[in-house]
């Protein structure tokens, strides 16, 4: 039984003049399901309920340019982050800080868990950040840059917001739409959903490595070909590669990739799904739930499944405030 959280939205709506991605009709600004008795405003319209910091939180980048924030378990809205041009991929560090790749503004914003104002900004110009990942062994930030068909993107790595970034390019892959560190600090990057002349492929940046190395990543069959890869992340034991309705688990060992298993996530409607975020509240163990955006002609929501089991339908969904969700991240309470 689906447990859909679809709260009725009041008549008072705030129109936004954003340039959201993916393209679509911009939705009105999100208001809380029940206005909190006290909430914090920053910039134009960012807000967060005071109790948000004490909750496991789900961050969702929306096509309308807003990042909506939910209590992970209750799936209720606790805040909205605005003032972004085109928020896309998200990632989280060990302390729970959330990083949002603002594709349109060519920068990555770091928010404290439950915070409304960026505590750091990573300038990615002239590149366009699509997704990000944090090295669990060093805290480095890696960003997948997609500069479009007329340019070559790169992987940009920062040791801190004040440091200069180091970029790594790969002529075989061209642009990058996803990257993820494993538990040892190796980075697996992909050019993702390829619209250009390239094939979907992967490259590996060894921990402290100096160059990207193309790597063949096997799938569930020996003649597997990757298609619409949406993202790469660490599930606590394996690298997890999103491809629409499935997550493929991969082990990366000394430059060799091995296919481990597949989680399939389905829903009633035929929707575009992903990228996903994996909930992991274990020390060194594997994540237990997976959350991803879903959108189609008649639905725009975020859905939950068990992980790695997956399932034929979500165990829960969120629709309130969701507008063609793209990036998602889970920040655990401290």
């Amino acid at each position, binding site marked *: 039984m689906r447990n859909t959280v679809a709260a009725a939205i009041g008549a008072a709506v705030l129109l936004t003049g954003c340039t959201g991605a993916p393209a679509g009709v911009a939705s009105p600004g999100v208001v809380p399901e029940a206005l909190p008795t006290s909430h914090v405003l920053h910039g134009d319209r960012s807000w967060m309920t005071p109790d948000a910091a004490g909750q496991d939180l789900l961050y969702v980048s929306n096509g309308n340019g807003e990042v909506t924030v939910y209590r992970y378990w209750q799936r209720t809205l606790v805040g909205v982050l605005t003032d972004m041009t085109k928020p896309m991929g998200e990632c989280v560090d060990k302390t729970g800080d959330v990083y949002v790749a603002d594709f349109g503004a060519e920068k990555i914003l770091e928010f404290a868990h439950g915070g409304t104002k960026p505590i750091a900004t990573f300038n990615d110009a002239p590149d366009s950040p699509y997704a990000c990942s944090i090295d669990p062994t060093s805290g480095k930030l890696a960003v997948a840059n997609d500069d479009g068909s007329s340019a070559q993107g790169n992987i940009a790595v920062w040791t801190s917001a004040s440091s200069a970034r180091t970029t790594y390019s790969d002529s075989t892959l061209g642009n990058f739409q996803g990257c993820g560190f494993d538990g040892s600090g190796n980075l697996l990057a992909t050019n993702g959903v390829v619209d250009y002349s390239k094939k979907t492929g992967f490259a*590996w940046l*060894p921990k*402290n*490595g*100096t*160059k990207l*190395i*193309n*790597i*063949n990543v*096997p*799938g*569930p*069959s*020996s*003649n*597997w070909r990757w298609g619409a890869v949406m993202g790469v992340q660490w599930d606590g*034991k*394996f690298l997890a590669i999103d491809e629409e309705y499935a997550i493929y*688990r991969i*082990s990366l*060992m*000394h*430059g*060799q990739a*091995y*296919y*481990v*298993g*597949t989680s*399939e996530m389905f829903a009633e409607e035929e929707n575009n799904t992903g990228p996903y975020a994996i909930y992991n509240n274990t020390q060194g163990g594997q994540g237990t739930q997976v959350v991803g955006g879903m959108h189609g002609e008649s639905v725009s929501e975020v859905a939950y499944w068990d992980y790695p089991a997956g399932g034929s339908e979500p165990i829960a969904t969120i629709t309130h405030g969701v507008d063609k969700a793209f990036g998602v991240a889970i920040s655990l309470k401290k």
Partner: protein
Amino acid sequence: MNARSLGIALSLSSLAACTGAAAPPPADQSAFNRATTSVARGPFRLHADRRRSWFAAELAHKQSSLLFVSDSGTADVYVYSLPALKLMATVTGFSQPQGECSDNKGNVWIADTNAQTMYELSHHGRLVNEIKTTGAYPVSCAWDATTGDLAVMSLFNGSGTSGDVLVYASGSGSGVPYTNPSQYYYDFGGYDSEGNLFFDGLDTNGNFILSELPRNASSAETIKVSGGTIYYPGMVAWNTAKRELVVGDQSCGNSYASCLYTLGISGKAGTISREIALKNSSGGPICDLVQGALLNGEVAGSDFDFCGSSPSATYVWAFPGGGNPTNSNAKSDSVPVGAAVSK
């Protein structure tokens, strides 16, 4: 059908064809007659590939030792003359070729991890046999000269649990699994001259482990290594002349470098007696020798250079001296992994 069984089904179906447009051979093959030939023979076929296998004409009559190198980056197996390292063949159609071993007939077994298959190539690079290792992830093998048995190291189980060693009596039939309960990942192995199998890998804590499956034993046991620290499992080979084990470390000194160690084996103890440093053509330490092969007074293998210090290449070094290579060939390698000498 779950994902794993689906994968196996697709894998089997992919073996049905062996087609692909011929590609020009590498430049250094121009001295030979170009005998582009399908590798398919008898009932056995390799996977469809973007290009066909290539064999130098003189290879068909060559009786001297050859070095087989598997490359998971190009999914090909290269055959080199020894000691000159002249490319004699490129065998295509693999999926993820990794570790190798050779038998007394001069045939070479190739562990194709992603295809879950062991392929047996003749001395001249032609496919003569295959064993499906369904459900296993074969990464290397060892051939027992005392029995003719083939041991296949399966890195881990497809469901993400620990691997094992599969022993195929006389290189056929069904594999009999053997494990060391302390070992999780199973990497490389080699038989000694009495039919005892030594193999390395990582334990359940991610640390290097060396194991022995004594001849006729029902389970493997840990060999405690002293005299140094081996960080990441590499080649395992028995040096008959010195009655010592040669073990590779892909992270020598816990760095991006590879080296070899010789170990004296006594009971359940292995004592490192020598560290052998190996250098690349630039004079620096090699980045990653995954598997090397011993031959008389030499060791041959390839450096997968993800460190950026030198191109990936295949080398011959003096053994046990190591140091600078005596021969090299950097024209073909992408992600070279396995090596075996066919005599």
